[in-house]
């Protein structure tokens, strides 16, 4: 290589020094990997009217009250309970798209009673398909980021797919598309982003898990519907109980099938905690009535739960379930 004189040496050393210094400066420019910051999630999507959300069309002939089924085998209980209620035909499922909103949020095995029983979910899917549904989707948000693993651990994913349903599990903070719905007369939740999947169905079925909830007291059927929101976090910044009730004025599933086969008595909603097994499945169309009955399983009265009181006030239903009638079935 050539011999370097003073100029060449300065040139070379200077080049290297300038290069390293320049590199450091360039790495400070934006676009060179500025670290992620907290963003405020906003509801995003086109406007929609509440009437676009599927709701029961009122021609369903069924038992107006609650049907409480006791037993041990999920399929038998569902069969007996739905028959007593009015049969799957009452839901008019022929060629309809069904969306079943379950509770699959936690990575707990089914025995921990933090999520809906996979056997029950599978049974419901099968019955919908037998009644002629064109498509059944089982749906929830998971609270672990690895949604696939969560639904595997709580068993709902494999059970739903084996029964013939499409399983959709959104990881929280990575929600999907939604439509913004105004809730008439609402003070706590005037508008909410409701996930697109809800609009893509013809019939909604709500399959919650009855369990203790650290913040809301209990998590029952009304509370289960917040998983339909694009931005679940917002509900907590306002008045939670009122917001849950207001949400239930626009999302009205055709049927509630509450899983109280095992229930979580404390440390909810995620557990682990004390599990009791009343062995019951509660079927009804009035979410306030179903929730009011379920309070009794935990030794609470409906008036102790804010969202049940508001729900009755807003006309979502009645807490006086005995007046509606409670049909008891044993298998």
């Amino acid at each position, binding site marked *: 290589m050539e011999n370097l004189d003073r100029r060449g040496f300065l040139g*070379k050393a200077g080049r290297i020094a300038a290069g*390293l210094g320049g590199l450091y400066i360039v790495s400070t420019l934006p676009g060179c990997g500025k*670290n992620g910051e907290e963003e405020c999630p906003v509801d995003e999507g086109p406007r929609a009217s509440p009437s676009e959300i599927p709701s029961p069309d009122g021609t369903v002939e069924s038992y107006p009250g609650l049907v409480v089924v006791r037993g041990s085998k999920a399929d038998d209980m569902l069969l007996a309970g739905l028959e007593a209620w009015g049969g799957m035909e009452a839901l008019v499922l022929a060629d309809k798209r069904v969306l079943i909103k379950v509770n699959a949020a936690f990575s707990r095995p089914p025995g921990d009673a933090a999520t809906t029983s996979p056997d029950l979910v599978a049974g419901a899917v099968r019955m919908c398909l037998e009644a002629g549904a064109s498509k059944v989707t089982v749906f929830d948000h998971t609270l672990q980021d690895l949604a696939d693993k969560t639904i595997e651990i709580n068993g709902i994913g494999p059970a739903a797919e084996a029964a013939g349903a499409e399983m959709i599990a959104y990881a929280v903070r990575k929600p999907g598309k939604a439509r913004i719905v105004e809730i008439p007369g609402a003070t706590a939740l005037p508008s909410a982003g409701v996930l697109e999947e809800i609009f893509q169905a013809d019939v909604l079925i709500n399959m919650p898990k009855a369990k203790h909830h650290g913040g809301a007291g209990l998590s029952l059927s009304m509370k289960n519907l917040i998983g339909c929101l694009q931005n679940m976090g917002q509900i907590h910044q306002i008045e939670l109980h009122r917001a849950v009730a207001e949400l239930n004025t626009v999302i009205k599933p055709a049927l509630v099938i509450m899983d109280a086969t095992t229930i979580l008595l404390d440390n909810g909603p995620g557990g682990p905690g004390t599990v009791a097994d009343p062995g019951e499945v509660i079927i009804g169309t009035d979410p306030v009535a179903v929730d009011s009955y379920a309070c009794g399983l935990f030794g609470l009265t409906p008036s102790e739960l804010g969202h049940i009181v508001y729900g009755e006030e807003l006309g979502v239903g009645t807490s006086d379930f005995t007046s509606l009638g409670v049909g008891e079935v044993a298998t």
Partner: protein
Amino acid sequence: MKKLKIGRRDFIGVGLAGAAAALGYGLFHDEAEAPLLRPPGAQDEEEFLGRCLRCQECVRACPTGCLEPADRDFGTSSLWTPRFNPALAKCDYGLCGRACARACPVGALCDVPDEEVRLGTASVNRSLCIAWAEGKDCLVCQERCAYNAIEFDERGRPHVVSNRCTGCGACQNTCVTCPNPAIVVYPPGTVTSGGGGRRNRGN
């Protein structure tokens, strides 16, 4: 064989370059506001920095996307090293099979058993938390905590039980208060009081 001749001027050149880099570091180094958390399995910070190649394999391998290359606000010695940022996602180390440690080609991240993972400790900022400051019924941090490390007092206000907290960041990630979350994970050993639970025994 050719004769070797030492280039003394090259030593001077390298020295100058080193001086320029050090000068650049001194002039352009900012103090970062957020804490610098490391992926699970990163041992002692000095040893970690001594091994990490800043190759981004762990960042790429992470399934939740909770890792990112630290930017210059954390200093030159940490530049581009993997930073665990709960604002992006929680660390699901129990479910991912420790993807980051498996991806690391030089063992800067070790596959420690789940029970020993200690990413940091969460701490509640009582002036930002809507349960503390406004008496609202928020519960999302406790709802998402997989380790039962958050407890509510009789007024529905969250407390972190630090000996159960693993620092996974689920609480910080889900906290509805934004842009600055009301519950933040701090590096292990830095949280000693304030926001700790009734059974706080320190770290």
